[in-house]
């Protein structure tokens, strides 16, 4: 299975519950805003500790509250593209890309910087500061930074949010390419039905 997730979490008086088993290359998590989709991603990445649950990705247990397993974020192997991107403002694009790459052991890296630059078409941005990038450029850099950290799986939070129609199409093509060419499972959060139907093998709804 690529993802086996069973989570319970109460935040601000609201209970989020998810049971998900998927063996698709791309699994989509859908639901109205405020349903807790980002909280789920944060739980998988290790940034939020759920009240209880079990998270297994590609056979590796990241969290099992009954067995007392709770890996810290840096050991989970998530390639997390945040909805708010979170590029490091004090580092140029090239240093942002290198950040996770330098931290990954050599055997964990499965794609080179040149391949990423080629795949995402960001060669002309390497010397730029994040503050000078457009929304679409910044998102591609954030995806590249995540992929270069040698992740075992990818978490994409609303990847097409705040992009115009032309950029959305380019990004969807890019996600399809990552899905079909790179051998890691993807969990995508979206509120766009059309986008989800086009990309995902498995769709899970969060009420």
């Amino acid at each position, binding site marked *: 299975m690529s993802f086996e997730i069973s989570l319970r979490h109460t935040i601000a008086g609201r209970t989020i519950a998810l049971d998900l088993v998927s063996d698709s290359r791309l699994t989509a998590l859908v639901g109205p805003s405020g349903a807790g989709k980002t909280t789920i991603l944060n739980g998988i990445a290790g*940034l939020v500790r759920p009240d209880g649950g079990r998270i297994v990705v590609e056979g590796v247990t990241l969290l099992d509250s009954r067995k007392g397993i709770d890996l810290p974020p*840096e050991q989970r192997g998530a390639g997390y593209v945040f909805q708010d991107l979170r590029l490091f403002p*004090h580092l140029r694009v090239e240093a942002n890309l290198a950040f*996770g790459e330098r*931290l*990954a052991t050599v055997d964990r890296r499965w794609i080179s910087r040149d391949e990423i630059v080629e795949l995402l078409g960001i060669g002309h941005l390497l010397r730029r500061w994040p503050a000078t990038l457009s929304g679409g450029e910044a998102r591609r850099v954030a995806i590249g930074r995540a992929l270069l950290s*040698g992740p075992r799986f990818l978490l994409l939070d609303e990847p097409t949010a705040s992009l115009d129609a032309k950029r959305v199409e380019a990004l969807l093509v890019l996600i399809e390419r990552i899905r079909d060419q790179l051998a890691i499972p993807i969990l995508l959060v979206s509120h766009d039905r059309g986008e989800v139907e086009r990309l995902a093998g498995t769709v899970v709804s969060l009420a």
Partner: protein
Amino acid sequence: MGISGAEWAIIGLSLRVSLVAVLLTLPPAYALAWLLARRRFPGRLLLDAAIHLPLVLPPVVTGWLLLLLFGRAGPVGGWLEAQFGLTLVFRWTGAALAAAVMALPLMVRAMRLSIEAVDRRLVEAARVLGAPPWRAFLSITLPLSAPGIAAGAMLGFARSLGEFGATITFASNITGETRTLPLAIYSGLQLPGAEAQVARLAVISIVLSIAALVASELLVRRSAGARAHVL
């Protein structure tokens, strides 16, 4: 306006005392600022209050407390003398300690604000990318709070240059040892006919303070790529 050798000595002593005070205080001040900005622990308010004490106490009282603690008969002072042969009272090192304690709250405040301004979500991003906590701190929190470190150092330096009450109480007013610029100005005012010297020393104080301010502003601009300002 000629500056005499004795006056140069006063300037040199003042700079040495202030520089040592700031360098000595930087690491603990940053650690305290980080604790107060990022951690919740029992006794946090008490620690915050203790750090701020020198800011609100009469400096003479701070000097007296330093005497109790770091005097030759004090618990810390006695230990330092027995272990390392280090005496602080009546020495320039004592003047540096007094300046450091008085500068600490200002430095902590400046650094704490800059650490609180570092977006925690960036630290989270670094963690997810594979950085253990210390590495995320070194590569994200520390560089992004650098303007606050420079601002804190500048404030601390300026405060140390002007330190009077705690210094004269704890380290006394000894020529060549603890008579820094403010103490020399005060001493000059007690003597008839020293008006010209007082004026010269006062002008030097003003020049040094402005130089510290400008230097730190340049430092911050360089480190932050002209995106941040102390002033």
